[in-house]
């Protein structure tokens, strides 16, 4: 489609007061744009009409709007299938820069030519961007998108997720490695009440869930089954199943060795299995995966200091459920009915030598089990020794009701020792209690409130046939749990299409598992429907653009495959990348990584940004600097808008180019800019590190890592490394932005103008 351009300049909101609109229009004319109009209030009905008339009457299909930030008036300037490019004159120029500067000796002020130049350059850059961009079209794979959902794990969470997805209209396969459904919940004697007044315990209704799942027309249950591998991508998964506990050639091979010296061993292990690029013809097709494999109890033999393994009557809370489910409570050593039990909280949890985290449910479990003890008779006694009693939310009511039972003794305290007498009775010695003294209690049995260990701690489970490896990644940040780094987006991980729920994600109670399952089911459905429509999922949800590769020039360097934060690329034996667009989050990190510059999006590519860099003049006069700022559009760019709204001022020497993520920044842009005599480049991106804020997880961190290459580029041009700097900015740090820019300008002045000017 041939483009017909129209440039529309708004002179409202101080733009017309401070800028020479005629000169701005002249820029458009010089760029051979056939239509350039201005309006006193472009966002008013009359202003919008002006544009609409040109679209209808003049055939304008590429609109450049020089007005306010693209973050506002987005709905007003939406003309359907028309390419719209926004030039940010209001926040980006007039509100954030001094229009006048102190002039001659008398201190009189004059219009700063740099101010007008800034606006003109932004118009130039906007026109070039529009020239180099195309409207994206949705990704349509050759293979049909499959809408079936795979749920791994048949406990309460997995069953709930299966039911939620099936009741939402989707077919589900539920796999469970044991020979029956139900998981831990089926082995519980009772659970704390889910309903007001929250003071009772009740039998968990797992059986009705098992029945519902087993009889649901849309749910296919497979017990004693495991996933050997999941190949493909969202909407296009090929899943190979296997009988639980067996090994098959379709088991996923281990990830290529990272450490030197391990290559041979890893290669040998890998040789036993089919390569990840080999397609299993018997694999079944799925659209998305829900991981609900839950938890396993912490290995209590590591708690020998608390007598486990040494004294038969020291048991764990999991064993206590089994005892209680059998009927009356009798102790392991001699089958004697249990009349007194001491519960020891945090048996391993909140202890960096064992589990550094809190298991969130064990206080409630022990209170509940104390009730089991009290059911043994009026004389039966329960003692609970805790660090902090943790019964959040409505569970406080359950705690309170237990506090009122005189047969339950609760105190904070540190367990000093547990000893056994000849009759196998136990003595627990506790210090620092609330009654102010060291106490000893003699009991029939001790229950250790042991914690939850996620099943993902030691195994990949999802067994993805991905070049970056079979499991979810970053789990070390979450103590092995299959959790998300994002507070606002708890289902987002670095593997598109796989959504974890329940205790594999965080320690949680049964009702919370059920809710979490519903959320994961929704995310799985959403991912499938997005793949079906050919659009991206979070955080660029709805984006139709996707990366395109010009393979003829690929040198098989594998950087894109290795650096993609979402493992979206696999590669063949030669190292040629195989893109999987439905795994892709459209951050452009691959584009930033590619040394051959063969990766780009229709509306965001190397040529586009490179041309923008080259679209404006670099003045050669003394004392006039030009600095380029590549700014993350997610956090840093809105922060700059906020700074502008507050009236904070930036130096007029800086030209801002927003980027999807700093990870998408290709070193060639820096080289291009530097070769033109631009004095410096500042990169503003999200915070990285363990608590990263990058919406694409690794983008800003990778950009920082690439600064080594940047230093080399600068060196090759005989330029100082101080000319390029990366600064981390959070969205609420708008007050710091002028200082960041001013300091960089000072740095430029210290280094001096670029010697490349004029070449």
């Amino acid at each position, binding site marked *: 489609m041939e483009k017909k351009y129209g440039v529309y300049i708004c002179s*409202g909101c*101080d733009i017309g007061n401070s800028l020479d609109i005629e000169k701005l229009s002249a820029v458009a004319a010089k760029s051979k744009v056939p239509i350039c109009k201005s309006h006193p209030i472009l*966002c*008013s009905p009359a202003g919008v009409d002006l544009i609409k008339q040109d679209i209808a009457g003049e055939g304008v299909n590429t609109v450049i709007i020089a007005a306010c930030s693209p*973050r*506002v*008036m*987005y709905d007003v300037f939406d003309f359907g299938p028309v390419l719209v490019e926004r030039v940010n004159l209001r926040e980006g120029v007039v509100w954030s820069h001094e229009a006048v500067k102190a002039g001659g000796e008398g201190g009189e002020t004059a219009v700063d030519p740099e101010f007008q130049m800034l606006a003109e350059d932004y118009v130039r850059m906007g026109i070039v961007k529009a020239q180099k961009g195309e409207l994206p079209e949705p990704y349509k794979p050759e293979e049909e*998108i*499959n*809408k*079936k959902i795979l749920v791994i794990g048949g406990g309460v969470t997995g069953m709930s997720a299966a039911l*939620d997805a099936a*009741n*939402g*209209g989707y077919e589900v396969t539920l796999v469970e490695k044991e020979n029956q459904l139900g998981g831990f919940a089926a082995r519980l004697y009772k659970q704390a009440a889910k309903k*007001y007044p929250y003071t009772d315990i009740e039998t968990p209704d797992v059986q009705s869930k098992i029945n519902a799942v087993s009889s649901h027309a849309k749910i296919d249950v497979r017990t004693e089954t495991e996933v050997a591998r999941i190949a493909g991508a969202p909407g296009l998964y090929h899943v190979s199943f296997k009988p639980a506990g067996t090994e098959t050639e379709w088991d996923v091979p281990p990830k290529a060795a990272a450490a030197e010296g391990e290559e041979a061993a890893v290669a040998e292990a890998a040789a036993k299995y089919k390569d990840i690029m080999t397609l299993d013809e018997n694999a*079944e097709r799925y*659209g998305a995966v829900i991981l609900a494999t839950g938890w396993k109890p912490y290995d209590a033999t590591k708690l020998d200091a608390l007598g486990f393994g040494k004294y038969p009557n020291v048991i764990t809370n999991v064993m206590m459920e089994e005892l209680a489910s059998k009927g009356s409570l009798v102790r392991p050593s001699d089958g004697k009915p249990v009349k007194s039990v001491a519960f020891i909280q945090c048996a391993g949890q909140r202890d960096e030598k064992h589990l550094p*985290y*809190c298991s969130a449910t064990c206080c409630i479990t022990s209170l509940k089990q104390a009730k089991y003890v009290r059911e043994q008779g009026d004389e039966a006694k329960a003692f609970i020794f805790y660090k*902090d009693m943790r019964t*959040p*939310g*409505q569970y*406080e009511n359950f705690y309170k009701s237990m506090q009122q039972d005189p047969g339950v003794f609760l105190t904070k305290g540190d367990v000093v020792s547990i000893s056994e007498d000849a009759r196998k009775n136990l003595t627990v010695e506790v210090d620092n209690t*609330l009654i102010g003294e060291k106490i000893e209690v003699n009991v029939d049995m001790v229950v250790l409130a042991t914690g939850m260990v996620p099943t993902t701690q030691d195994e990949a489970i999802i067994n993805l046939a991905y070049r970056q490896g079979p499991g979810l990644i970053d789990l070390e940040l*979450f*103590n092995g749990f299959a959790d998300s*780094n994002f*507070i*606002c*987006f*708890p*289902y987002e991980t670095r593997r598109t299409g796989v959504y974890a729920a329940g205790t594999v994600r*965080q*320690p*949680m109670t049964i009702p919370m598992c059920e*809710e*979490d399952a*519903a*959320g994961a089911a*929704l*995310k799985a*459905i*959403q991912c499938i*429907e*997005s793949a*079906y429509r050919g659009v991206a999922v979070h*955080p660029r*949800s709805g984006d139709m653009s996707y990366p395109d590769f010009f393979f003829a020039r690929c040198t098989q360097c594998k950087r894109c495959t290795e650096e993609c934060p979402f493992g979206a690329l696999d590669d063949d034996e030669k190292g040629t990348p195989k893109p999987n667009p439905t795994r892709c989050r459209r951050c452009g990190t691959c584009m930033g990584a590619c040394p051959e510059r063969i990766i780009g999006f229709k509306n965001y590519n190397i040529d586009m940004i490179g041309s923008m860099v080259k679209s404006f003049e670099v003045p050669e006069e003394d004392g006039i600097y030009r600095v380029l700022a590549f700014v993350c559009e*997610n*956090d840093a760019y809105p922060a700059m808008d906020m700074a502008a709204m507050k009236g904070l001022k930036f130096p007029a020497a800086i030209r801002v180019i927003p980027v999807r993520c700093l990870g998408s920044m290709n070193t060639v842009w820096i080289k291009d800019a530097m070769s033109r005599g631009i004095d410096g480049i500042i990169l503003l991106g999200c*915070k990285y590190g363990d*608590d990263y*804020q990058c*919406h694409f997880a690794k983008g800003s961190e990778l950009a920082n890592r690439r600064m080594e290459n940047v230093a080399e580029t600068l060196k090759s041009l005989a330029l100082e490394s101080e000319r390029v700097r990366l600064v981390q900015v*959070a*969205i*609420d740090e708008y007050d710091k932005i002028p200082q960041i820019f001013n300091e960089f300008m000072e740095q430029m002045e210290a280094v001096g103008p670029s010697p490349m000017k004029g070449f």
Partner: protein
Amino acid sequence: MTSGTGPVSGTILVVGGGISGLTAALEAAEVGHEVILVEKNPYLGGRVAQLNKYFPKLCPPTCGLEINFKRIKTNPRVKFYTLAEVEKVSGSPGNYDVSVKITPRYVNEKCVACDACAAVCPVTRENDFNFGMDTNKAAYKPHNMAFPMQYVIDGKVCQKASCAKCVEVCKYDAIDLKMEPKTLDLKVGSIVWATGWKPYDATKMDNLGFGRYKNVITNMMMERLAAANGPTGGKITRPSDGKEIKKIAFVQCAGSRDENHLSYCSYICCLASLKQATYVAEQYPDAKIFIYYIDIRTPGRYENFYRKVAANPNISLIKGKVAQIEEDAATKDVTVVAENTTTGNKIHEKVDMAVLATGMQPTLAGTNIAVNAGLNESGFILADPQSGVSACGCAKEPLDVVSCAETATGAAMKAIQTLVRR
């Protein structure tokens, strides 16, 4: 092998535009459903828009809000109304009639947020966004990252036609002081309640002196004090005289876990105080910080955050419930009286400022909002998703932001099921 029916017809109504409501609305819309979101404030974002940072990452809530607002901007399936409250719900699952009352904003969509109206407005009002710690004009921007980025006129204090200075000065024809309340009649298939929470009224705890002593504040006020867009520009100083902080006390369970106030535990207050202790420690590295608690409740991996904060030698955690707060009338310092339950010692700690870790009360408690679901004795919604109505976030139980987003995503799932069942 292709299965599933894809999106079905029918609209989902989400009540409440805080983090839970935003999440429920967007998650459903991104599946492909039509969603209407109604919010009673003039802006979206709810309570989290008032927070300075989230625990445990200490990251700004506006970061996630910005993404969610971007999702709204780019998704034609979400329609939202601000200053909108549900008045009446009737009908049955799959087929509800809902009346929504829209309070006039007096500012239309032509507003470009230029501030000219506020500059000429002669009326000042207590800034409720900052809990009355500063004032703004009757024509005001709710806060500097407000979405939608439009001004609003407080109809309760505006002098309307007798003044109308803002109308004269507005170049964009954006002010209409004659705007009338409107009622929207909506037909929806399912409803998600995400009406959130309000801070428990701290003046009800007579012994803690809130409302009488200026230097006793609530944890939500502390968020505003620490926020860059707050009344002090982010500098934590005490309200009586703007003095810097040398000693500060956090009073846990101020209202929560108390039969006379809120019987339940509000879940987030321990973490909020630990987080706020980091705000103080960052601005005043030498300040002494005391946290008085019954139990420190940092479930799951939040324990790692607790351990990190507690490692600061200037932060003391004392097990003991605060019985009383007294004020020195001359200096306005406050003395926190408690018993250390581990040592049995009585404590009288004089500090510059005390922060009450006030609990969460469901917004619906004590109101007459027409929820078509039951409320429990505390005002939390008892929704049965089978009924076409679901609840999420803090309207349902006290939760952190992560769990709000989880339950909201789950509520979107339940809402969709109702449409599928039709």
